[in-house]
């Protein structure tokens, strides 16, 4: 079973984000790393391919610059190869543009299953999995906390407000996974070395036949203002001397919740 995992390379979330003052786009310069959220999908794909008796795990990613360091992390975990759509014209892409690019790239890999995270950590629009599925004309199951494939079907436990639903769909299908669906492996030294020579197929927007349809060229929303939010002030901070809990009790009493 061949599986595609959509992965995103993002600026280190530990470093405060910044918007370009001119375009208001999120700055994505410098080193990009594999979005933590995507490690779950990569691991899940590796395990599902193994359980199905083999098959390749292909990464599909999009980045305005040719960055690959995040992809190498996922390749080091065990993915076989990657397709990176990299093009200056992708700057300013919204979620629908992103989905159009990913869907076009995924088609080339012709997978049995597509796995994504529920949303990226940097932009977190949270609609790309469903948009990709719609563009590919595939069934989709979102917010998976458990996945199995058997008999040409994918069976998923899907997170709901009340608990979870058992949902199944015929393959090929798109499944978005929540954190905790599996425990991602750490890349081994051998994996890291092997990843250096794994194929990364770099494509442009023109290669996918999407000129003028994606990126800033097709932006149909515009940021009109960016303002600082009202700052919240810190209150009383005390060192616990063993009686700190009393402060909390008193605070709860003062707010009449106990």
């Amino acid at each position: 079973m061949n599986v595609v995992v959509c992965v995103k390379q993002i600026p280190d979330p530990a470093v405060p984000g910044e918007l370009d003052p001119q375009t208001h786009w999120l700055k994505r310069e410098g080193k990009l790393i594999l979005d933590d959220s995507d490690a779950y999908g990569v691991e899940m794909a590796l395990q599902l391919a193994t359980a199905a008796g083999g098959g390749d795990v292909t990464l599909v990613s999009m980045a305005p610059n040719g960055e690959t360091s995040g992809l190498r992390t996922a390749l080091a975990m065990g993915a076989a190869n990657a397709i990176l759509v990299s093009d200056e014209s992708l700057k300013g892409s919204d979620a629908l543009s992103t989905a159009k690019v990913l869907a076009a790239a995924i088609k080339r890999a012709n997978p049995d299953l597509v796995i994504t995270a529920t949303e990226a950590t940097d932009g977190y629009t949270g609609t790309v999995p469903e948009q990709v599925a719609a563009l590919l004309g595939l069934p989709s199951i979102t917010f998976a906390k458990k996945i199995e494939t058997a008999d040409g079907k994918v069976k998923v436990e899907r997170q709901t407000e009340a608990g979870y639903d058992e949902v199944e769909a015929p393959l090929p299908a798109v499944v978005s996974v929540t954190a905790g669906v599996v425990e991602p492996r750490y890349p081994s030294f051998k994996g890291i070395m092997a990843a250096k020579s794994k194929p990364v197929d770099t494509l442009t927007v023109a290669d996918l036949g999407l000129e003028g349809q994606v990126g800033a060229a097709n932006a149909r929303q515009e940021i009109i203002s960016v303002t600082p939010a009202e700052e919240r002030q810190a209150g009383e901070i005390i060192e616990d001397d063993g009686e700190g809990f009393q402060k909390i009790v008193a605070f709860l009493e003062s707010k009449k919740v106990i």
Partner: protein
Amino acid sequence: MALSKIWVHAEFGTDKPSSITLELISKARTLADTVEAFYAGDNADAVAAELGKYGVSKLYTIDTGGNLQGVAVASAVAAQVEAGNAPDLIMFGTTYDGRDVLGRLSVALDRPVLTNASALEVEGDEVRVTEAIFGGTQLVTSAFRCEPPHLAAFRPKSFVAEAGGETTAAVEAIDAPDKGHAKVVERHVEEHSGPILDEAAIVVSGGRGLGESDKYQLIEDLAKLLKGAPGASRAIVDAGWVPYSYQVGQTGKVVKPDIYIAAGISGATQHMVGMKGSKNIIAINKDAEAPIFGIADLGIVGDVHKVLPALIEALKNR
């Protein structure tokens, strides 16, 4: 100038329309002459009666054929739009099903989406939505630059649910040309006592500082004593200690309780964006430099393993 019509994706909570649905409708009513809703689920007549109290004049119902909502609801709504029955704006909650329908509809109508929004304004015929980014420190306002209907999803608690504009909502079944192939085989309702996370007046969240998954019980116990809901930072959701549905933050739930207690949570921006709108924040963390103390009304610099048991004991003895 007001919009002429807004549609809202209606969802059902445990025993009535969900709070987010009522919040969206309450806001929509202030911006549009007509508010209608569309709904896939049980108890359509009861839902229509309730939504009518908030000013919804028509409830479109959609049969998903036992499948997930995304494909069926989007195809039904798209068919209406293509047939000329189109609103200016379609509002969704940032929920599991809301996001599914929104994503599918965005492709069906070839429209961009704006999500995670917390405010909505109409200026002339321009529709503007605002979202908080970078841990809630910056507010970004965007306007749509395309033909309506515009598509936007809003965080729970962005608007206040208030009955008004009372009317009788007519129920009209609309056809879904495509119902998709993702079949719901069985629904499992996980028993949990107490309020749900994003509606609770008190939320007690735990993080990595708890040290190990067994210690999350302290959070559950405290939440129960306070009749609140337990929550979690992304770190311990990622570690598999608790399910994704517990996650408070940018990629989880946004909560605005009267009291938010953060135990063993340092306050990554990812987390803060989900809880900084709380009325009162109490933080317990051993690191005095933890960012969470920067927004806490009461901060206890101490060991959660000592403070929480003592607090639980004190509350039990009252």
